[in-house]
Structure formats: structure tokens, C-alpha cells
């Protein structure tokens, strides 16, 4: 038994995703934004720790050289990660942009 076909009502207009929806934090834009901002925060924290460690090394306050080097390596890796995340986010956005036509 098939259901009766209902009359076609008005279809919603297909809207292009707008850039300001990302910056205003509405809709899917907010997910991209929070991804990027959390990755950036990790980078900032790691960078600060690395800077402190290097300052400590220069002024002679630091405990050990390997700790300083590890701090800079961690900051490096965080930044690397952030770059990859950013690249993926940008290419995903571009893909969506391409899709709507």
C-alpha cells in the first residue's frame, strides 16, 4: 500500500553558506571555529612554556638542558598539529563552497 503523494509545498531556497556565518559563530561555522581556536590555544600554551624554558636556559635558572629542548620540541609539535588542523579545516570549507553550485 503506497502512501498518497502529498502536494508539493514551497521548497526552501538553497542558500549559499556565508562567510559571516563562520565569524558570527552560527550554524556549522561555530564547529570549525572552536576546532581552530582550541588548537590555537594548545599552541599558545606550548609556545609560552617553550619561551619560558629558553629564557631560563639563557639566564642560568633552568634545571636541565634536555627539559628546555623538550619544551621547544613540544611547541614545535603543537604548532605542526595546528597547521595540519588548519589545512584540513580550510580545505573542508573550500569543498563545501564548491558543493553548493
Amino acid at each position, binding site marked *: 500500500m503506497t502512501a498518497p503523494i502529498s502536494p508539493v509545498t514551497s521548497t526552501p531556497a538553497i542558500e549559499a553558506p556565508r562567510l559571516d556565518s563562520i565569524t558570527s559563530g552560527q550554524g556549522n561555522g561555530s564547529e570549525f571555529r572552536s576546532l581552530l581556536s582550541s588548537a590555537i590555544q594548545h599552541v599558545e600554551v606550548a609556545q609560552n612554556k617553550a619561551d619560558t624554558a629558553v629564557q631560563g*636556559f639563557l*639566564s*642560568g*635558572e*633552568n*634545571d*636541565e*638542558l*634536555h627539559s628546555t*629542548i*623538550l619544551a*621547544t*620540541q613540544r611547541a614545535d609539535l603543537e604548532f605542526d598539529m595546528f597547521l595540519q588542523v588548519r589545512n584540513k579545516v580550510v580545505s573542508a570549507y573550500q569543498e563545501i563552497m564548491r558543493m553548493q553550485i
Partner: protein
Amino acid sequence: MSLFNSLDVSASGMAAQRARAEVLVENLANADTTRTAEGGPYRRKDVVFESSATASPFSSVFQSAIDGQATGVQVSQIVTDSSAPVMRYMPGHPDADKDGFVAFPHVNPAEDMVDLMGASRGYGANVAAMSAIKDMIQRSIDLFR
């Protein structure tokens, strides 16, 4: 910075052992010196070692507990033997006194030779320590690769 500080500790050990060796060599060379510029026989010298804190120009006032404990060494003083010299009966000797006795230094060559070997071993141990620590610092730097 403190592994770098350890290099100073080992360096101080090397310097101290070298000073010890120099004094011992002087003793050995003058074991039979009966006449010196100050008059009288050569008087043997000994070094006195003392623990000392080492500070490099790169270190700061914030020393960790370990740095306070990992002390170097320094020669605090060189003691000149002031005891009476060894008198030997040698009437024909140019430095003999009116009774025919000659004053000789209190140097026991066998003892000082053994001591010298100890100084040499100590010096070598400090060189090995410095080399090991330099290697550890290098390994830390290799973490960059």
C-alpha cells in the same frame, strides 16, 4: 645549566690533582737537596684539599639543592714541612756542620712516588667524568634531531 656546572666540578678536580702532582714532583726532585736559597735543606711541601662550591659565569643565584651538594675541590693551602730535618753523618760533605752531620729533607721518595700515582689516577678519573658529562650534554642537544 647544572650539567654544565658539573664540568666546572670536574675541572676543579683536574686542577687540584695537577697541583698535587706538581708539589710531589718538586719533592721528588729535591729529595736530596741539602742547600737551598733560604739556607738549610729543602723542606717538603704538601697540598691540602678542601671541598668548594663552583660557580660558572653562566649560572644564576637559583641553584637547585643538588648543585649545592655537588661541590668541586680546591687546594686550600700548601703546607711546608716545618719539622726538624733528617740528620745524616757525612763528614766529607760540603754542607756538613761542625759535627759532620748533613741536614737532609724529609722526603721519602717511595711514598711520594705512590702518592704521585694516586694523583695521576685521580686526574684521569676527573678527565673521564668530564668526558661523560660532555657526552650527556651532547645527547640532550641531539634531542633536536
